[in-house]
């Protein structure tokens, strides 16, 4: 008799009704990470396409033309959204890679913290640059 022919006790739910309703599973965060990765991916589809077209249009632009473009003013808004969505999506993706390949508890935590720190650092640096151009005299 194989496993799938076993009578009903083998099919008894392993999780309590409460655990099933809360839906967080063994990782204690349910589908939160997965869902955030998908939502940020979806946001990045139009932002990325806009950015690629903008960069191609900006080929050969001098500094004055570039700053004028940033201030025009939607590009500043889209650039900030692009930076936020990019680094958020990057942090989520790199987190999975770090969790997959770094097995030592201390090293994994250190790598995760360093990666998060760098993502926030670069995102803030980029946003500040855009704001400086958009709001500068």
């Amino acid at each position, binding site marked *: 008799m194989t496993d799938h022919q076993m009578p009903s006790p083998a099919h008894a739910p392993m999780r309590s009704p409460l655990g099933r309703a809360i839906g967080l599973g063994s990782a204690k965060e349910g589908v939160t990470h997965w869902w955030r990765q998908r939502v940020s991916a979806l946001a990045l589809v139009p932002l990325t396409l806009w950015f690629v077209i903008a960069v191609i249009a900006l080929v050969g632009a001098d500094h004055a033309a570039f700053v004028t473009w940033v201030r025009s003013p939607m590009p500043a808004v889209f650039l900030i959204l692009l930076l936020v969505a990019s680094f958020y999506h990057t942090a989520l*993706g790199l987190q999975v890679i770090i969790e997959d390949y770094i097995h030592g508890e201390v090293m994994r935590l250190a790598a995760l913290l360093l990666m998060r720190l760098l993502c926030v650092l670069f995102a803030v640096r980029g946003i500040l640059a855009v704001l400086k151009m958009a709001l500068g005299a």
Partner: protein
Amino acid sequence: MSPAERPLSPHLQVYRWQLTSVMSILHRATGVALSLGTILLVWWLGAASDGPEPYAAVQHFLGSWIGLLLLFGWSVALFYHLCNGLRHLWWDIGRGLELSSVYGGGWAVLASTAALTIVSWAVGLSHWAH
């Protein structure tokens, strides 16, 4: 047999590569490459906000052979990750999971990546020449 002597799976010396697994690995690899590419974007924006001289220095670097090679790699990684990401989102809503669709979508992603890269660079370079 002790755990150390067990063959690894996949056993890379005799592993027959498939489109699906290669594309999965490439999705992760291009994701890592784009993480670095996004730092390039911040560097570019930072230089532009610092003034004409730093901006001109970045533009000069990006116009060099190394800069153009980096930009080309960035564009290929971006278009691949974008197209394959849409393929993943399509799977995530439960569509296209038959083996034929998985392979068809895979080839479509590779063709789209090539097409988007070629069109972008053709338009960009002709723009640059003028």
